[in-house]
């Protein structure tokens, strides 16, 4: 679609959203679960177009933001004690830990490598055969299949120096905790995660919590269409799950990827920043993959981490506080000098607010 048509289509959708929401009985608040949606909503200036009757709040879908500070400490301690090569996605390296970030650790001589694909770990492990290579396993269902595939290859190649430090999360247990919140009118559901788990898997939001949910793509129009559909459903008090991203997401998801996750991992309890321990919301290794678990094979003593009590990341990822209402926002906490992960991650809600301010 050319640029002019896109602008015209956007204008029509915005008008529709305004018309439906202005005749609704109460203001509506939807949670966009995914960090990539958060960034797209800000980047496209979509917030400036919505009427005050429709609010979008960000949820716990940025993998870096929901990762506990202690995880960074754990990684650094493994790096130090075992002279390990830490391999990570880029976003994690500036997240502050108790003894500094991974970037600081690297500047002090620690080995930290940034990769795009966990598969790169195979090559790195072969090259660095004298030391442990530890991949920092952070992410949702979009990331875990590629890590599972990496582990499968590592097993077949008998890689003895490759490990994964697990902090994986699955989205449903977190949604189960957020869905009962009475001020949430519905969910803008993630695109990439849904490509793996399928739109049918959210049916419980409608059945159990009476909340609508719409799976959306990441283009401006994808998001506007999904918001329009959410506003429609919420105004009719209709709890339904729609898949508005059919060109990528199947209702049943990607079964091969689901099987891969299930072959390598099994659910476990895990700690979420802001939400505490959520039963069954993490992934740990099944036999015969347990030998790759850095947490049990490269044992270090990780002291409990203290968060700055003024940091409100915990409220921000549950959608109960807008970033600019946090006392640290833009003052003591900036992307250059972040206090909490929501400011440092490129998908963090605070980073989105900071980077893409809304014109008032």
């Amino acid at each position, binding site marked *: 679609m050319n*640029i002019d048509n896109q602008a015209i289509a956007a204008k029509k959708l915005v008008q529709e959203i305004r018309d439906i929401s202005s005749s609704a009985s109460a203001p509506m608040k939807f949670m966009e679960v995914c960090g990539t949606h958060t960034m797209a909503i800000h980047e496209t200036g979509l917030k400036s177009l919505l009427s005050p009757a429709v609010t979008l709040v960000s949820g716990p879908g940025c993998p870096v933001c929901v990762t506990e500070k202690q995880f960074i400490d754990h990684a650094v301690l493994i790096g130090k004690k075992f002279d390990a090569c830490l391999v990570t996605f880029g976003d994690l390296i500036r997240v502050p830990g108790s003894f500094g970030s991974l970037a600081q650790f690297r500047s002090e001589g620690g080995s930290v490598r*940034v990769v795009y694909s966990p598969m790169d770990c195979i090559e790195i492990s072969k090259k660095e055969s004298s030391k442990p290579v530890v991949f920092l396993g952070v992410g949702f269902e979009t990331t875990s299949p590629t890590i599972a595939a990496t582990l499968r290859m590592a097993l077949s190649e008998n890689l003895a120096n490759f490990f994964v430090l697990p902090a994986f999360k699955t989205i449903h247990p977190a949604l189960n905790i957020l869905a009962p919140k009475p001020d949430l009118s519905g969910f803008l559901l993630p695109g990439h995660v849904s490509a793996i788990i399928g739109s049918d898997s959210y049916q419980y939001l409608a059945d159990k919590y009476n909340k609508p949910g719409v799976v959306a793509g990441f283009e401006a129009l994808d998001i506007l269409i999904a918001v329009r559909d959410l506003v429609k459903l919420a105004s009719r008090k209709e709890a339904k799950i729609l898949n508005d991203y059919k060109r990528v997401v199947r209702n049943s998801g990607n079964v091969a990827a689901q099987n891969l996750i299930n072959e390598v991992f099994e659910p476990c309890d895990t700690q979420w920043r802001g939400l505490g321990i959520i039963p069954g919301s993490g992934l740990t290794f099944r036999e015969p993959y347990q030998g790759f678990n850095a947490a049990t094979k490269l044992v270090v003593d990780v002291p409990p981490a203290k968060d700055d009590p003024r940091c409100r990341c915990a409220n921000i990822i549950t959608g109960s506080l807008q970033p600019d209402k946090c006392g640290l926002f833009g003052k003591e906490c900036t992307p250059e000098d972040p206090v909490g992960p929501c400011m440092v991650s490129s998908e963090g809600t605070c980073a989105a607010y900071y980077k893409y301010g809304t014109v008032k």
Partner: protein
Amino acid sequence: MSNDKDLRVLLGHGGGGKMSSRLVKNTILPRLNRGKLSLLPDSIVLDGLGDRIAYTTDSYTVSPIFFPGGNIGSLAIHGTCNDLACSGARPTFVSVGLILEEGLAITELDQILEEMSKAADEAGVEVVTGDTKVVPKGSADKIFINTSGIGRIDHELNLGPDAIEVGDEIIVSGPVGNHGMAIMLSRAEFSFDFDIQSDSASIWPIVEQLLELGPHLKFLRDPTRGGLAATLNEIAAGSSVEVQIDETSVPIDEQVKAASEILGIDPLVAANEGKLVAVVGKGMAQKALDLMSRRQISSNAKMIGTITSDLATRVIINTRIGGSRILAEPSGELLPRIC
């Protein structure tokens, strides 16, 4: 000049003795000398520069040192020449300071000097003085280069943020983000199949055209580190004005767009090394674009926005869907995203 692949820079090459002089005479001078350098004086006397000159210095530490579209040598010439050009000065003379890490292959040094000499010839500058130091392995990353430059100013214009007024129009000389994206992609961590070249080039030919606008030409800047976003914020802050740009009018190559989506890096914050942002008087953009179209390097120039108010200091980007948001000053290290 030695082509022996095994020859490397040794600490002795920086000792000031025979080895030093051999490196200079056999490797450096053949590439860079255009006359004035041959005497190797302690300093050089320069004539014919007129009443007004511009003077600048910059250091280059880019990694990797070789990238698609250039290397650290050509960059060190272009970067300094472009800083001069942004003052409206014709780049004329440069100095070159080389800091070499022990172990650097002489063939690599020669490749760098070759690109450097080509870039200098194309930019119309002469390398007139220089220095070479060698530091122990680990004390530098292969090679660092400092270049200083002197440019002649043949006009009376005062280009600067003070001249900018509400209504002025903003032009960019071509697609943005290529250099930054080319560098990101050529870092060892990533293995993507994009064909993105650095835009590293001298922008003086563009400036020379724009000077024909006389006092309608207000401000020039090369959007290097921090990209277009940093330059526009610099204009807003420097002149205490509101800048508005239209997202759809900013030229960006398709490949750069695609890479930026994968890397999660906004092309508006990615560096350029051969682009120019110009602020011209109200109604003068078309004339400026006509002048710029005479040069190949700026044949895809576009007007991207205007100075809209002096009541706020900010940059607003009007988005492709008709929304608007703040275009913030970029911050910190560029990082790829997580998923």
